[in-house]
């Protein structure tokens, strides 16, 4: 049994994984008025994690990403339901969303919508489901 040398793959992964995570955040943020959104952002983050898993192995990635991806599914669903149930506080129907204009120090005046929170819930759920499926299939050897 020879031992393969994965130097090029590992160096490329450590560069590309950050580009993928940045692109995933961009897709999540741009989903309001461009293509993208929580679903594609979650899939992009999952593909960045899969790339790390492919080049470093399960044991190493478990040390640097100590997340049980199964717990992400209920967390994401709770965020999504919470944004829907939060509309009861303001005495409006379920899943009513609103938006407002805020002035932040770096970005200037931006439009923040509560649909963003729902999208983050979708993002976390999709990430958890995808990573759970892939890791469960990869684990049986």
């Amino acid at each position, binding site marked *: 049994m020879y031992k393969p040398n994965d130097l090029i793959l590992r160096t490329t992964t450590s560069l590309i994984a950050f580009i*993928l995570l940045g692109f995933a955040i961009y897709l999540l943020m*741009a989903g309001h008025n461009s*293509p993208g959104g929580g679903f594609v952002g979650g899939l*992009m983050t999952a*593909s960045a994690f899969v790339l790390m898993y*492919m080049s*470093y192995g*399960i044991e190493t990635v478990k040390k640097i990403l100590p997340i049980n991806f199964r717990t992400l599914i209920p967390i994401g669903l709770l965020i999504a339901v919470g944004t829907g149930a939060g509309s009861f506080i303001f005495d409006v129907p379920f899943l009513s969303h609103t938006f407002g204009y805020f002035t932040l120090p770096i970005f200037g005046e931006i439009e923040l919508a509560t649909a963003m929170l729902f999208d983050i819930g979708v993002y976390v759920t999709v990430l958890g489901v995808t990573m759970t499926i892939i890791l469960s299939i990869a684990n049986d050897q």
Partner: protein
Amino acid sequence: MNNLLELTEQMIKISTIICVIGISISLLLLLYRALAGPSNADRAVALDGIGINLMGLAALLAIIIVTTKLNDVILLIGILLFIGTLAIAKFLEKGVIIDRNVD
């Protein structure tokens, strides 16, 4: 001046159509290689080439229907292509795609 603008627009349209035809021929040849490749590595390389040609086709489509919304799709195809080719290469090399412990 107006005539010049129309001329350049016509030139862009014609050259885009020529590029689409060229990429289609390249896709057909690559499809032949993917179907009839003697080994699995030939098929993997052919699929990689098909993906790169699809990126070019998406870019040309963004020129034809005048839009910038397809740029994300092009980047997405490239990333998924890289990961897919990596998975095929790892499967052909080792037999497992995600191994338990590399060292």
